């Protein structure tokens, strides 16, 4: 596809006093999206990703959006390069160095079989083979005491082996290095001195937390993707500097924050999920601006739907996840925005199994051949086909009219694959697809809140993505969410989120012991060590100390439990002295999440965490989100038949054009609100109002 530039998403002119020009560029597998605030305007563009040289995508998207590189003060960037390197297993030739006796920690993993009844299961396949895994004599115990000194001679011998094997990257993970990193550090010195070009990752530099397999896997991931990502980011920077770009380059990371390009080159493992999290960060900012305490960010695109719980503007964070699927993927023990993903998108294929069960997804028709209604020859009915047949989507205005949808092709696919075999009418089958997809998404969205002990009735949903606004209200009805917000530019909202992300770096350090019995000096030392690491990192990325916020948390649990809950700790003294306030917070949180608490039981700490954040110096995107809405010239309403809950009884429905709706406009359901890249469906009885800033606020009938 050719690129589409659009520098005029409504005449939203920001005050001229604004001097900063920032752009976010998100390079996905298929498309490269750009959203920027330039000269007081919001600019966007979309073009095809150039897989051979993704940096060309940056150049092209900047050109399409008519952004001059010398005029920009910051470029924020998200990319799938790190995660694709893992999924395609196309990383560097990497070696692993372990404690003697533990060469196979990485291969053995946890021994589990997630697919419990599958006799032909596959376990995670290490990124580094056994023949490139080397043991070194050394041993440190759980207290950090050296039991066996490091065999430095052995390390020097290994240097030659690595060179002979043409190794490009090395991961080093020793037992209990979270407690004492001296041996790892020394190995790093020797390796880096011997070959400065070698990409060396030491486990304690990435994560200082017990669990040797997950830490090894995280370290190996970083080393494996390191050289390739480093080269890619290097090319990007060179390209931008050659174009006289004078500003800062920030990289979006999985924890929902950004980091400097220099740090990204050392810790590429932390940019694995840089794409999906940006939208959720944006939803968080919007929730904050609108004063919503608990929100559910809901992003539905072509292949999947994603949801995340947002509390006081901050998305939930998970301490690690598995890349490439739970059953046989690679564990990554770093904080990541807690996003639940479900295989239901506009392109999800509906099918009937051999026993007559009707299912939607997880297979997707993707962009090519795409839905049957794209007319590219696909015969599989998908969610978008169903929406078209139900009259919910406008075949003439799809992608702002760039593509006409073929309703007859959609009906044919529905008839042949579903309606015929199930003896339903085409419209019944279409309604069934949408209802099944909505119900599956409802369960996932509900799980996002109830797993954290939050009642969906006390939340609001912020819906975006190409298909989000079309399904959001139905989901909200299903799980009793009383309010749905569809922000301005829902179709490119994800890229906008990047412009609002704070600088963020997470640190963790295992500290194990009973609350009330911890040595104050040890606790102070751990806090000091973390703070020191945080300050150093911030300084390295040019963050001034007064800009940074240091938040400590303690991973706590009742003695005997395994799973912990992170509780904020203002002061290290709370851990070694009177901890009653922590105790109360923990008991309350445990009760909320699991429906019970044990205030009489002993509490223990497992880890101390430090989250260092620095808010962006500007608030351009936030200002644009809050700025008064100025509608375009009025466009006359259309009317058409839309099926809501009864396939036999279409409802004559008002079709409004969103760009022309004035602030304060009130639209009663049934209604369809269309805009260039999204469609919002308002069900009978629900009421949408255009807020002063132009967001759609939908009150859902309970």
């Amino acid at each position: 596809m050719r690129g589409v530039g659009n520098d005029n998403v409504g005449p939203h002119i920001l005050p001229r006093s604004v001097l900063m020009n920032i752009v976010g560029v998100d390079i996905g597998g298929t498309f490269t999206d750009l959203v920027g605030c330039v000269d007081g305007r919001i600019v966007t563009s979309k073009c095809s990703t150039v897989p051979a040289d993704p940096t060309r995508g940056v150049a092209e998207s900047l050109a399409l959006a008519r952004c001059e590189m010398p005029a920009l003060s910051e470029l924020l960037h998200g990319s799938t390069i790190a995660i694709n390197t893992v999924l395609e297993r196309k990383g560097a030739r990497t070696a692993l160095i372990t404690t003697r006796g533990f060469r196979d920690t990485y291969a053995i993993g946890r021994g589990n079989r997630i697919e419990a009844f599958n006799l032909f299961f596959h376990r995670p396949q290490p990124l580094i083979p056994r023949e490139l895994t080397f043991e070194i004599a050394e041993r440190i115990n759980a207290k950090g005491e050296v039991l066996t000194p490091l065999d430095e001679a052995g390390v020097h011998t290994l240097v030659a082996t690595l060179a002979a094997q043409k190794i490009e990257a090395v991961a080093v993970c020793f037992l209990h290095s979270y407690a004492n990193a001296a041996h790892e550090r020394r190995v790093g010195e020797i390796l880096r001195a011997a070959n400065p070009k070698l990409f060396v990752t030491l486990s304690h530099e990435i994560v200082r937390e017990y669990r040797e397999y997950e830490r090894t896997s995280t370290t190996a991931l970083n080393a494996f993707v390191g050289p390739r990502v480093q080269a890619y980011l290097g090319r990007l920077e060179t390209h931008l500097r050659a174009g006289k770009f004078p500003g800062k380059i920030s990289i979006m990371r999985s924890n929902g924050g950004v980091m400097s390009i220099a740090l990204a080159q050392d810790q590429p493992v932390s940019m694995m999920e840089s794409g999906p999290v940006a939208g959720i960060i944006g939803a968080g900012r919007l929730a904050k601006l609108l004063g919503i305490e608990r929100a559910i960010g809901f992003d539905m695109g072509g292949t999947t739907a994603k949801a995340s719980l947002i509390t006081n503007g901050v998305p939930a964070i998970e301490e690690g996840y598995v890349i490439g699927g739970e059953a046989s993927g690679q564990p990554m023990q770093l904080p990541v925005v807690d996003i639940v993903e479900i295989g239901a998108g506009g392109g999800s294929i509906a099918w009937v199994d051999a026993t007559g069960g009707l299912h939607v997804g997880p297979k997707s028709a993707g962009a090519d051949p795409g839905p049957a209604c794209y007319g590219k020859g696909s015969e599989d009915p998908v969610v978008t086909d169903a929406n078209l047949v139900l009259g919910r989507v406008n075949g003439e205005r799809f992608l702002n009219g760039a593509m006409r949808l073929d309703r007859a092709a959609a009906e044919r696919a529905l008839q042949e694959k579903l309606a015929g075999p199930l003896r339903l009418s085409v419209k019944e089958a279409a309604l069934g697809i949408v209802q099944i997809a909505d119900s599956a998404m409802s369960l996932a969205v509900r799980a996002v809140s109830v797993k954290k002990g939050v009642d969906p009735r006390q939340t609001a949903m912020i819906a975006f993505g190409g298909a989000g606004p079309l399904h959001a209200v139905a989901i909200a009805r299903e799980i009793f969410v009383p309010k749905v917000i569809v922000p301005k530019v829902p179709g490119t909202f994800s890229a906008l989120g990047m412009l609002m992300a704070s600088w963020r770096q997470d640190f963790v350090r295992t500290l194990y012991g009973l609350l009330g019995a911890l040595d104050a000096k040890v606790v102070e030392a751990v806090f000091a060590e973390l703070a020191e690491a945080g300050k150093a990192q911030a300084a390295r990325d040019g963050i001034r100390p007064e800009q940074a916020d240091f938040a400590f948390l303690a991973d706590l649990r009742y003695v005997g439990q395994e799973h912990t809950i992170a509780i904020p700790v203002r002061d290290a003294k709370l851990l070694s002295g009177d901890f009653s306030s922590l105790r109360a917070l923990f008991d309350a949180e445990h009760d909320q999440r699991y429906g019970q608490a044990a205030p009489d039981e002993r509490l223990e700490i497992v880890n101390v965490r430090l989250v260092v954040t620095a808010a962006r110096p500007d608030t351009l995107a936030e200002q644009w989100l809050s700025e008064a809405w100025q509608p375009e010239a009025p466009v006359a309403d259309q009317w058409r038949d839309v099926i809501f809950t009864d396939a036999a009884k279409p409802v004559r429905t008002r079709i409004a054009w969103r760009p022309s709706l004035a602030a304060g406009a009130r639209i009663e359901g049934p209604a369809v609100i269309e805009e260039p890249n999204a469609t919002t469906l308002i069900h009978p009885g629900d009421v949408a109002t255009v807020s002063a800033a132009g967001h759609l606020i939908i009150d859902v009938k309970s």
Partner: protein
Amino acid sequence: MSRNEAHPITVEVVRNAIVAYADEMANALSKAAYNMMIYEVRDYCCGLIDTQARMISQNRGGLPIFLADLGVAVADGIERYSLDGFAPGDVIVMNQGEVCGQHLNNVVVYSPCFHGAELVGFAANRAHWVDIGGVRQGFGSYGSSDIYAEGIQMRSLKIYEAGKRNETLWQIIRDNVRYPDAALGDLRAQIASCQLGARRYGELIARYGRETVEACIARVWDQAEAAARAVVEKIPDGTYEAESFLDNDGRTLDKPLRIKVKVQVRGSQMTVDYSEMNPQVPGPLNSGRSGGIAGARVAFKALTSPDLDVNEGCFRPLDVVLPDGTMLSAKPPSAIGLWSIALPTVIDTILKALAPAVPHMIPAAHKGDMGGCSFFGFRDDGSRFLLMNIFGGGWGGRPDEDGESASVSVCQGDVRNTPVELQEIKYPVLVETHALRPDSGGAGQHRGGLGVELTYKLLQRCKANINLDRTRDPPWGLHGGGAGAVNECFIHRADGTETAVKKATEIEIAPGDRVTFLTAGGGGYGDPGKRPNDAVERDIASGVVTKRNAS
């Protein structure tokens, strides 16, 4: 109830919902649990049960051998109290050996689920408590000779009655188990999980009406049944037999135990016949009927529909012939503490019987045991400790590829070994080796997977249970493949002596002693002569096969 009410779209909505509720129950249970048997070993299951004690749905990812067997526990309560005898706020506990057929550590908890004043079902879970009293501690103890030595039994007792806790029962539990904080913590988590499930199912009924929901559930079961039947139909009709042997019953050491199964396939129906199974034994290496049924069901599920959810319908095409008095159907008051130990072998033997009929569906034998160790004693400060760890072994070679290494048994699904760093943080041990065991995989065109080598150095006086099995009858190969290496265990005493141990209950360990476990490898599949040279070379380069063994 008319099947016609089950509109295909509502069926799909209900299908997703009932499993999601069970998963939500599992999350609430495992996240708040106090013992590694629940949070690491996932030795639990959660589900919804109807008023006829049938399994509506079960969570994904629990222990495979807990297959649709919560119903018998609930049925006992229904018989005792009658359907009118439950009130909102009731919670029932149940672990009685005769009815449940499993070791007493497996405690079932359930709550009735109401729609208005009407009882519409139950939300239930079963979880493995780390201790239930009695003479047995940790894994693998042969110390008991009858059920009364194995801990406290609670037969369908209301621990909560209309929301009020039965303090007497609570105290009895507290006073009769070794780790009361953990047991009662797990019980609290189980109760919260059941109450959550009961609430959710009530919401579903309120939304769609009881008749519609039940019609949809019936349809989901029918579909599960049809999916399984379609696979059984493809297996040629016939009677298939196989046998294998466990080492002994832990008491009479020279007498192997015969695991004999006969599998009959007739059209879309399969029968697993245990008529010639070894009789029950004097020690705890027995199960009640639920053990025999679980073994047949795991094999059946793995063959027919491993990727579909578990419910009452999956097993309709399966009949189990299981006379009383075998080691899988021991009569009370037999000891059943090691109820699950025979099951990996039982399941593999069922598969072996069918291997000639459907060679493309069945891998060679896997390691064949549950694989675990326990060390227990007192720390310097007088507190009690119990280290339990589960480790994997090799799985058999497959029709198209090598077997997986270092994986837990067919009876254990998402069961995880305990991180070495965590063991050393919590317990007085030092792990010296955690490695793949070279040369342990059976030879074959497709090699068996490797076992594991694990060496503990104990830093404090304690006791250990060691329970190896299948050392006489190794994991077999298929279609010309060789056998995998068998389980071994060595104790290297601090004084320099070394002994091989197979079964030992509460063996004394002194500080500085080392205990090494070598777990079994998987059997090979197909003629080793047909193994491609590059595969052999790769094995040698990576060191999983030594040169000596490759030739």
